[in-house]
């Protein structure tokens, strides 16, 4: 009854004894050797364990001593079985411990738990101290979080760049507008419109589409419908873009698109610009690829620099456009001109659809399209915007010129023939597709009719509808047969 409680006390003692006995020789338990013989008291088990732990503890520290005393072991072995109580307490306790060691090693290894470990730790005491590093998150230092600090620093750098880039783009746009405002306001009655206000009143400022794209719409002038100016700056607000630009320098661009009325321009297609731009236009633009089949020609005949080349529908057009003033403008600003397009069949880049050609010809609009490079190759300052002013003068001059430019009779005939040819080609290419589309439409109609007949509940009406559709089909077949006969007769 009291045995559980009695067991508790030695258990507590055991727990307490373990840490204490490890470091020093415990004289009390030396006498425990007497009780190595199994006593019939409750404490016997635990006392053995106590002895073991005490003995194990003492083998650990004095293991070095035991090494030294190994030659003595042989002598001691004879006395190993002698009880240690015979006065071996005081002197030569080292011997007793080595005897303990040997004694215990003769016993079953499993009987004494932990003695192997003690031997091992005994060995480890011979090795130098190994200091293990404390896992990083348990340390109380910020240094271990250096990756996180790097990340946050990167984010802060990105935000700083965003603010700086946005600011710079905004200043560049404003500088451009300030330098061009006077010229625009003297030429257009509506300068700046976002399309949302009720009345057509000039807003007098740019529309910001993006952090790097600004729009300006001008309208209200003779010879044109309107002019859309797009300031396409570099993405200075995006750090990735900034880094990419360090590898591959790119320019800011100003794109001006003038849309014309029907009577503002005669029918011709013309382009002048850098060689690379011309090649790209010829490949990608719908009208350029169709009307300007020849390779871009050099403009040296007119005195243009070698970097520029001309794409034209016919020679007469080139001669008409490239008058002295135009050549003068282009030559003086050659490094800023990327491309200039005059086209009455402008419809944008070629549309590539998955099913092949589109079924309808794309909508065309008479357009003048100018693309200018801002000088500075990315490192522009607001002052550079003034250098674009002569280009705007050129644009205005072109608008007036195109209105006055008229092809002579031959040129006009050629142009009309070209356009008819293009349309015919287009119709031929899409002929098969249009046939298919017509066929599917006819089938759909028939199916719808049949469904109507099926759904009709009144049998009488059903029969009548069926007869009607049969008669219609018969008529169609007869018509076709007639046509075939006519063709045969004609062929003969």
């Amino acid at each position, binding site marked *: 009854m009291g045995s559980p409680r009695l067991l508790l006390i030695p258990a507590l003692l055991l727990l307490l004894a373990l840490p204490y006995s490890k470091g020093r020789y415990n004289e009390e338990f030396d006498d425990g050797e007497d009780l190595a013989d199994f006593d019939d008291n409750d404490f016997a088990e635990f006392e053995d364990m106590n002895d073991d732990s005490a003995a194990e503890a003492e083998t650990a520290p004095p293991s070095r001593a035991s090494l030294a005393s190994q030659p003595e072991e042989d002598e001691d072995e004879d006395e190993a079985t002698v009880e240690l109580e015979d006065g071996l307490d005081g002197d030569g306790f080292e011997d007793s411990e080595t005897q303990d060691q040997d004694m215990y090693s003769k016993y079953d290894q499993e009987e004494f738990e932990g003695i192997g470990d003690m031997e091992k730790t005994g060995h480890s005491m011979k090795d130098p101290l190994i200091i293990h590093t404390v896992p990083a998150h348990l340390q109380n230092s910020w240094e271990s979080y250096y990756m996180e600090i790097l990340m946050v620093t990167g984010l802060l750098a990105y*935000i700083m760049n965003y603010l700086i880039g946005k600011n710079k783009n905004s200043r560049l746009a404003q500088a451009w507008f300030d330098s061009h405002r006077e010229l625009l306001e003297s030429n257009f009655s509506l300068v700046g419109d976002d399309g949302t206000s009720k009345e057509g009143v000039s807003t007098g400022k740019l529309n910001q589409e993006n952090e790097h794209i600004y729009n300006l719409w001008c309208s209200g002038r003779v010879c044109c419908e309107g002019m859309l100016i797009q300031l396409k700056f570099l993405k200075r607000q995006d750090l990735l873009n900034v880094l990419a630009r360090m590898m591959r320098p790119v320019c800011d661009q100003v794109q001006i698109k003038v849309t014309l009325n029907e009577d503002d321009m005669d029918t011709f297609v013309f382009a002048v610009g850098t060689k690379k731009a011309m090649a790209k236009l010829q490949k990608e633009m719908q009208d350029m690829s169709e009307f300007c089949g020849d390779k871009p020609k050099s403009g040296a005949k007119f005195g243009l620099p070698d970097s520029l080349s001309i794409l034209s529908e016919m020679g007469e057009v080139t001669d008409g456009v490239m008058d002295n003033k135009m050549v003068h403008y282009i030559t003086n600003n050659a490094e800023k001109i990327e491309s200039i397009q005059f086209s009455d069949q402008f419809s944008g880049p070629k549309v590539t659809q998955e099913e092949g050609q589109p079924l309808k010809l794309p909508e065309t609009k008479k357009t003048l399209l100018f693309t200018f490079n801002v000088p500075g190759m990315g490192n522009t300052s607001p002052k550079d915007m003034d250098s674009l002013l002569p280009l705007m003068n050129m644009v205005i001059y072109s608008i007036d010129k195109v209105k006055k430019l008229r092809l002579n009779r031959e040129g006009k005939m050629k142009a009309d023939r070209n356009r008819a040819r293009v349309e015919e080609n287009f119709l031929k290419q899409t002929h098969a597709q249009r046939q298919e589309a017509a066929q599917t439409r006819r089938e759909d109609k028939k199916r719808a009719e049949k469904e109507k007949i099926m759904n009709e509940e009144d049998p009488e009406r059903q029969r009548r509808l069926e007869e009607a559709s049969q008669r219609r089909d018969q008529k169609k077949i007869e018509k076709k047969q007639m046509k075939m006969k006519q063709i045969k007769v004609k062929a003969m």
Partner: protein
Amino acid sequence: MSFNSLSDPRRVNKIIRYKAPSSDSNPTLEDPTPDYMNLLGMVFSMCGLMLKLKWCAWIAVYCSFISFANSRSSEDTKQMMSSFMLSISAVVMSYLQNPQPMSPPW
């Protein structure tokens, strides 16, 4: 307005209002970067949350910042904010679950 002197080319009666061209053409044709970055950001933040990868969560934060920087003014701010919040929550959750610092791959 009466016809001015020949040197003044302005004509008030010829004013045509501005019509935003992007309504005709597909806006994503022009620059798909913000949409891609938005999607990438969401994917990375989900990876970071589910797989408890800290670096995924950090990349998601970067993606949402890049998407914001490249976004058009016509774009929904709600979408931007939601992707941003998602990436921040991915980072916070990764650290709450495992406060150990990120180890570099080298």
